């Protein structure tokens, strides 16, 4: 709360970005506290992690300080005030937090909790709901990510990356940094893969994994330069990967249609429904991960490619 207020008042955008990062971390802690581990994980990876990097790379393209405000923000304040009041008004009659008799816990949840281990066979119930019961929403969300990537491409496009000094490193010639990052990247990627495939059992899944995997490339870019990272992962491949993720996700659904079941019904994928569910969730999580990874990196490329040489130095 304090962090958010300071962030609004500050006109040093660099500080604001950092404060947002802190804010996201605090939110993640809050989610943790509410026992929403998967949400906390996402908030930490996306809110505190990658979006800070993206905002910083945007900041590089503009100025660090905000122009002085011209208008008195009475109307926005009024809108925010009314919205807040409406939220409080609405919450007055809401069930107490943690009330086991609340409708949320009484109506759909019992089946998710009691039957999902036998119906879906995945220990992490959040994954069961996201990937199977409401798998179609997740396909929609993946499409939203894909759309975001397209939107950035439409607006900015990806320019050729260039190393600050061709053949040399982007951030100084710090040997320590280079060695540490080289070692780190391997672990980051390994961790991403763990998150990807372990989503069935613990917190995580394709979404978080894709973000973490992209982070490895972002770090490589920052330390070794844009041209180098583009040699490892060329931009046109990202477009193909992003599309491939959607194809994999929706394709899994189409296969179940050809097997005589509704779209995204994983039961049809194998002789044993639970095996089918496993296979289906594995495939669609891989689709989510691929698309998220490709889109995040695309957005990063689009921004980092906008840098003009004189701004870097």
């Amino acid at each position, binding site marked *: 709360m304090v962090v958010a207020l300071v962030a609004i008042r500050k006109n040093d955008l660099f500080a604001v970005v950092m404060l947002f990062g802190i804010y996201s971390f605090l939110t993640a802690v809050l989610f943790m506290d509410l026992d929403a581990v998967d949400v906390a994980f996402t908030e930490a990876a996306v809110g505190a992690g990658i979006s800070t990097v993206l905002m910083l790379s945007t900041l590089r393209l503009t100025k660090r300080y905000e122009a002085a405000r011209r208008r008195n923000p009475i109307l926005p304040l009024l*809108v925010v005030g009314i*919205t807040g009041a*409406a*939220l409080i*008004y*609405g*919450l*007055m*009659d*809401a*069930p107490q937090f943690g009330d086991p008799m*609340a*409708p*949320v*816990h*009484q*109506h*759909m*949840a019992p*089946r*998710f909790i009691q039957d999902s281990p036998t119906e879906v066979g995945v220990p992490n119930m959040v994954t069961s709901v996201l990937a*199977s*019961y*409401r*798998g*179609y*929403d997740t396909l*929609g*969300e993946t*499409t*939203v990510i*894909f*759309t*975001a990537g*397209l*939107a950035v*491409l*439409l*607006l900015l*496009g990806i320019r050729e990356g260039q190393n600050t000094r061709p053949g040399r490193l982007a951030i100084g010639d710090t040997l320590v940094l280079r060695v540490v990052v080289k070692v780190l990247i391997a672990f980051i990627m390994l961790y991403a893969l763990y998150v990807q495939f372990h989503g069935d059992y613990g917190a995580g899944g394709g979404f978080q994994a894709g973000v973490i995997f992209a982070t490895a490339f972002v770090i490589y870019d920052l330390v070794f330069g844009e041209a180098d990272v583009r040699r490892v992962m060329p931009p046109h491949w990202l*477009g*193909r990967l*992003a*599309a491939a993720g*959607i*194809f994999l996700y*929706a394709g899994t*659904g*189409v296969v*179940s*249609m050809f097997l*005589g*079941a*509704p*779209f*995204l*019904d*994983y*039961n*049809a994928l194998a002789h044993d429904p639970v095996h089918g569910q496993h296979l289906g969730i594995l495939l669609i999580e891989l689709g989510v991960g691929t698309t998220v990874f490709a889109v995040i990196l695309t957005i990063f490329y689009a921004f980092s490619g906008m840098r003009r040489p004189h701004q870097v130095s």
Partner: protein
Amino acid sequence: MSFSDHFPILVVLIPLLVAPLASLFTKGRTAWALALAATWSSFLVSCFLLKDVLANGTVRYYLGGWEPPWGIEYRVDVLGGFVLLIVTAIAALVLTFGRRSIKSEIPERRKSIFYAAFLLCFTGLAGMTITGDAFNVFVFLEISSLSSYALISMGRDRRALNAAFQYLIMGSIGATFILIGIGFLYMMTGTLNMDDLAERLPAVSDTNTIRAGFAFLTVGFGLKLALFPLHLWLPNAYAYAPSAVSAFLAATATKVAIYSLLRFLLGIFGAGFALGAMPLDMILIALGLAAILSASLVAVFQKNVKRMLAYSSVAQIGYIALGIGLASQIGLSAAVLHLFNHAMMKGALFMALGAIAFRIGSSRIEDFAGLGKRMPFTMAAIAIAGLSLIGIPGTAGFVSKWFLVLGTLEQGLWPLAALILFGSFLALIYVGRILESAYFGTPKEGVEVREAPIEMLIPIWILVIANIYFGLHTDFSYGLAERAVMDLLPTAQTTVEVAQ
């Protein structure tokens, strides 16, 4: 399951799958061909779907094989099928029209991505229309909004960026409000399925949470559908977007938002709560009237024809809001019918403007001088669709306004009827200004202007002829609108009586 059982998902799945495919091609023409094929096949499927619904009643499709409320269901009733038909038909026609228009307005290297974004926008709108799940509405709303911001920003005019940004801010506020509203409903009922919500809501409807959720949903959708005074994003967005995008969004995006609002108001909350216990009926009538009068008046003074028609859209949305506010069978039917008719008029008008922009590179009213002779077919299309916009007998626009007036008179609200007629009079003035310039203005010397290419004229004229056809044969359109409303009202009708 047989092939035809999959129709509900296919309408959405085809464009959703073709969009990433189209984005992979470097040649814009290939992407266009794919997008065209996708929209036309979606249209065909939605025709079959509507036929099925009319014959056998509501069609349901359980995604992932999970029955609701645990899973997400697709649910097509008469209203849904009707709106789906409008959206798919307009998308197919606009893409047929759009190849050369888009080629002239979008840089070659961005074209395939542009078509992919167009398809995603279409996917989102179709998904919102067909779903029976409240949260799923939000997901597809996000797809359609995000892609429409990007599409609008592709306008040639630099101001398009600003317009898109303004829309992004307003649209995001709207989407957040909708999400909060859905969250409140979920908190009190524990379900997201629309039918299940409708069943479980009455027990808890007399709580602050539901009232707040109702308000958030109404304001959120009000922003998306550009209900006066939440319409400020619309004129710039439509005026500066690429022609094909203006045509597509003007004819579909606000319509789908209205449809979703109707779904929530009547399908979930029920007319008794939404328009009876809550004072929304009076609010909608008042805002509708304000929209009709103020936006029509502003439209009269516009110099840019695209902007003029954008303001006219705000006014037309006012008519629809008014019809909903009447909260009667006839008023609601008129609103649904006007949704259909307005899509045809504005689709034709914005496409015709696109054809003119393609030939003369402008949509300013003084540049229209003499176009009546130089682009006779395009201008004739504007004239006829314009007459329909005014509501001249013999056109589709007349029919919906006629029923709207009947609806007001039925409740003895004759001043409202007079004001509706006054709105038509204002429309007469602004449409008249376009036609005056085109038919009586003296053209600039030395500028050669040719008629628009035939591939543009055909889709425009399909809609123009539809305007006349549905002006003369009301059985199909009004009959459908009436049945659609009947589907929504039966449970509601009883509650209205209880509420009174």
